[in-house]
């Protein structure tokens, strides 16, 4: 098999070499700015933080709209230029090989960009001791970005085979990526006559609205803009892979068939030019129908469309055929408006879908805190489903009679699955009594309770927060045991709806699931086991630092002590005592600095006895904070007294 029919290494090498300057810029821009962002972020010296890719991916996201297009233009551009078309097409390399080789070159460069960025993040995370990473989250995010970049790259390559000027190539790329998702989204809006919001009962006067959010996933470049955030699912990934492969294969076919004489020209055919131009204004017409704005705005918008129509002609064709264009525009406006009219009035459209207990076959209760991951544990408990919807109906009936007086209700968040498996995410108001009844019903459902509790048992980073100190511990068995003990004790309602005031320690379990960093919260009261675990973790971390080096790092260093006056187990309510010493929450050392330093050096391998009283020594510089838990309270008290005494003497001298 002659592989050069499909791929030519020499050509790849030369093609990269000829654009090395531009390609180097394209390769370095994303890694550089991502690493810079990371280096500047996560400088909270008090806490160890877990890297959330969402916070640093934005450079990569912006790059997604620029880099692949830049790559296409660098690698393919000259193939379509009048000056080089003879040169490259007469070379002993067939068109299929040119297309595939250039595509591979682009994929290689995209891979380098993502690998470099990923590598940079790993290196920075190693250098920054207060930053923890979940490698899977980084690998997953970069894989997704890699797919997205390759997807845009393939789409641009396809657009370049179809059109002859950079402007129309970009227009086509935008149409390929955005048109279908946009039109689909607008169509849903037109069909449903409102954005995805349905009412339980169209006659409802009480605002027991079920805000239904049926999650739609298209392709990442569209989703990022339409949702304004970096979220993606497996559907996004599959769609981009499939469309990308189609674009690639179609690109090969069309490139082989392409008439190379049609270069430096938007489209060979006037009709295609008209179709493309019309497609660029069709979304605007849909949008105008959806936003239902005032007439002055609509007139202004139509005016803008007309101006755009002629500007487009001028840019693309370098001439304006005024009369012809006006007729064509009128035709397009009538056709577009006709389509919208048809959509609005087509029998069966404009449905206000009634979402009721008959539709919902399964529910999962969401947590009150929206930051946390929705529970994926579903139940088809009919009694619970009926209770929720009957209770909501009851409110709807009662509300007009009393205008809400004497109605005690609460809002719960639910995910509901219909019989087709379609998931709705909604909020619903139910009577307060029914709220407790609901959990009583679910509590009896052993299988459901078991599955909910199992959600907390998975591996993950445990973040233990107490006041302003957070300890991030990776996968601690002992703390997991504590969580499990808590789970045993707690009722279902106490897992979903937590009264934080009852606990002095929050335990969040972070993990990467469904392509995002999420967590589950389980507040507890501190006990010996947890304290021991935190102390061991922090002391181990502190034992590795070099105080001299830290002092000379240029940022300066400060030492302080947190004091727990009483035995930990004597009272769980540690907060009052924890920071209550000489009316200061913490004591910063100046004079006795050498003593505290010496103490740390001598005791940094101490194993805390968590049943006894302990102090926490805190060492911090600009970037990091380290803690040493110690039972040697007498020695530490002596150092504290020395510090206070000397300070007092200094103050006296100053006054005198």
């Amino acid at each position, binding site marked *: 098999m002659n592989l050069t029919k499909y791929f030519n290494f020499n*050509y790849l090498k030369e093609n990269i070499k000829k654009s090395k300057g531009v390609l180097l810029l394209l390769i370095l821009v994303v890694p550089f700015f991502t690493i810079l962002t990371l280096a500047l972020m996560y400088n909270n010296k008090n806490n160890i933080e877990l890297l959330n890719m969402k916070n640093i991916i934005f450079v990569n996201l912006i790059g997604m709209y620029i880099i692949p297009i830049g790559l296409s233009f660098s690698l393919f551009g000259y193939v379509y230029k009048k000056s080089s*078309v003879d*040169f490259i097409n*007469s070379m002993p*390399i067939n068109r299929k090989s040119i297309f595939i080789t250039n595509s591979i070159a682009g994929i290689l460069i995209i891979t380098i960009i993502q690998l470099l960025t990923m590598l940079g993040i790993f290196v920075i995370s190693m250098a920054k001791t207060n930053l923890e990473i979940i490698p899977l989250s980084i690998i997953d995010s970069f894989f997704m970005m890699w797919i997205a970049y390759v997807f845009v790259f393939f789409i641009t390559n396809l657009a370049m085979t179809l059109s002859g000027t950079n402007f129309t190539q970009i227009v086509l790329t935008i149409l390929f990526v955005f048109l279908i998702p946009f039109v689909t989204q607008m169509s849903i809006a037109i069909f449903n006559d409102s954005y995805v919001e349905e009412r339980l009962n169209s006659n409802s006067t009480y605002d027991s609205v079920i805000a239904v959010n049926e999650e739609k996933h298209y392709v990442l470049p569209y989703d990022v803009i339409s949702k304004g955030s970096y979220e993606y699912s497996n559907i996004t990934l599959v769609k981009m892979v499939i469309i990308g492969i189609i674009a690639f294969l179609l690109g090969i076919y069309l490139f082989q068939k392409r008439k190379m004489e049609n270069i430096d020209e938007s489209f060979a055919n006037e009709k295609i030019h008209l179709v493309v131009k019309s497609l660029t204004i069709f979304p605007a017409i849909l949008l105008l129908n959806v936003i239902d704005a005032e007439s002055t705005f609509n007139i202004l918008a139509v005016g803008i469309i007309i101006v755009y129509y002629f500007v487009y002609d001028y840019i693309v064709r370098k001439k304006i055929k005024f009369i012809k264009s006006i007729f064509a525009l009128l035709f397009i406006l009538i056709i577009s408006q006709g389509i919208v009219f048809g959509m609005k009035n087509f029998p069966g459209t404009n449905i206000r879908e009634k979402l009721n207990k008959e539709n919902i076959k399964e529910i999962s209760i969401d947590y009150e805190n929206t930051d946390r991951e929705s529970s994926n544990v579903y139940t088809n408990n009919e009694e619970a489903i009926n209770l929720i919807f009957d209770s909501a109906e009851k409110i709807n009936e009662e509300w007009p009679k009393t205008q809400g007086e004497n109605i005690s209700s609460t809002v719960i968040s639910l995910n509901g699955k219909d019989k087709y498996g379609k998931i709705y995410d909604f909020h619903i108001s139910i009577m307060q009594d029914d709220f407790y009844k609901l959990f009583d019903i679910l509590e009896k459902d052993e299988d459901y309770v078991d599955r909910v509790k199992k959600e907390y048992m998975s591996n993950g980073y445990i973040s233990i927060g107490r006041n302003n100190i957070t300890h991030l511990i990776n996968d601690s068995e002992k703390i997991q045991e504590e969580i499990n003990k808590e789970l045993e004790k707690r009722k279902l309602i106490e897992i979903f709806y937590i009264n934080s005031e009852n606990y002095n320690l929050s335990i969040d379990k972070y993990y990467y699931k469904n392509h995002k960093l999420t967590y589950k919260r389980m507040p507890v009261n501190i006990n010996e086991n947890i304290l021991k675990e935190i102390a061991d973790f922090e002391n181990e971390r502190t034992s590795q630092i070099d105080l001299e080096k830290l002092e000379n790092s240029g940022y300066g260093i400060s030492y302080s002590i947190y004091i727990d006056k009483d035995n930990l187990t004597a009272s769980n309510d540690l907060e009052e005592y924890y920071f209550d010493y000489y009316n200061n929450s913490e004591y910063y050392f100046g004079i006795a600095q050498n003593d505290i330093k010496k103490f740390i050096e001598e005791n940094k391998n101490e194993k805390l006895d968590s049943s006894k009283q302990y102090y926490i020594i805190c060492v911090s510089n600009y970037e990091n904070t380290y803690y040493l838990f110690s039972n040697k309270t007498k020695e530490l008290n002596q150092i504290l007294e020395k510090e206070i005494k000397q300070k007092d003497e200094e103050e006296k001298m100053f006054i005198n």
Partner: protein
Amino acid sequence: MIKISNLNKSYGNKKVLENLNCTINTNSIYGFVGANGAGKSTLLRLINDVFKPDSGNIEIDGKTILDNQELKQKLVFVPDDLYFFPNYTLKDMANFYNSMYKNFDMEYLKKLAEILKLDINTKVQNFSKGMKRQCALICAISTNADYMFFDETFDGVDPVIRGLLKKIIAKQMEKKETTIVMTSHNLRELEDICDNLALIYKGGVLFESEVNNLKTNMFKVQISLKEEFDKDTFKEYNLLNFKKVGSVATLILKGEKEKVKEKLENLNPIILDFLPITLEEMFIYEMEVLGYEFNQVF
């Protein structure tokens, strides 16, 4: 051998080549001449698979050229619009050709560059127009391809270098069996190098001939006879053109030179001179026979 049959090509509604037929034998230099826009460059682009024909067939050594990578190893094309990668030196360009052509001879390129006084480490974009063409030509020649296509071969090249390049081309043909196809809108550029010449007019080959054949079979004769004479006096001859000023006539005749001479001497002429004839004149008279004005064609 290159065999072109019934070749058609249009750009939109404009027909550029129409039923073009032509055969180019191996190991020869074939020249296509014609006015600007006649279709010479398009023909070369079609032969080199830059453009695809609307219909018709191009066979090189019995194989079709369409997307035929192996066959394209045997072809090299220097277009009218030269292209060099930005910031590339002649050496870089040669390396590119080297990576593309299996038989590229880097040492030979360096030698040719030396002959033409081209610095291989200078960026090609800094060369003059004529030097750029020399760069392209020597890169192409160094590929040792079997078929070389040069569009507007000597455009921008000064007469001295033109002569040198012609020698280099001739040397290449001595070195190995090579077929060279050249185009020019200027007949004089090709007359002393081509074995065959074809005139392209309105997308077809209007006239094609071996140059030697033309040169040995066509004469320009100045003649004066004792008696009165006119065009009819020479009706037995293959007369292409007759012009008489006073008692002296200038004839353009076709045929075997010795026989024609003998026949003319039998007329006991007072003056009988065989004058040199340029290729351009030969074309003019051939065109006239075909019913075309030379100015229409060029």
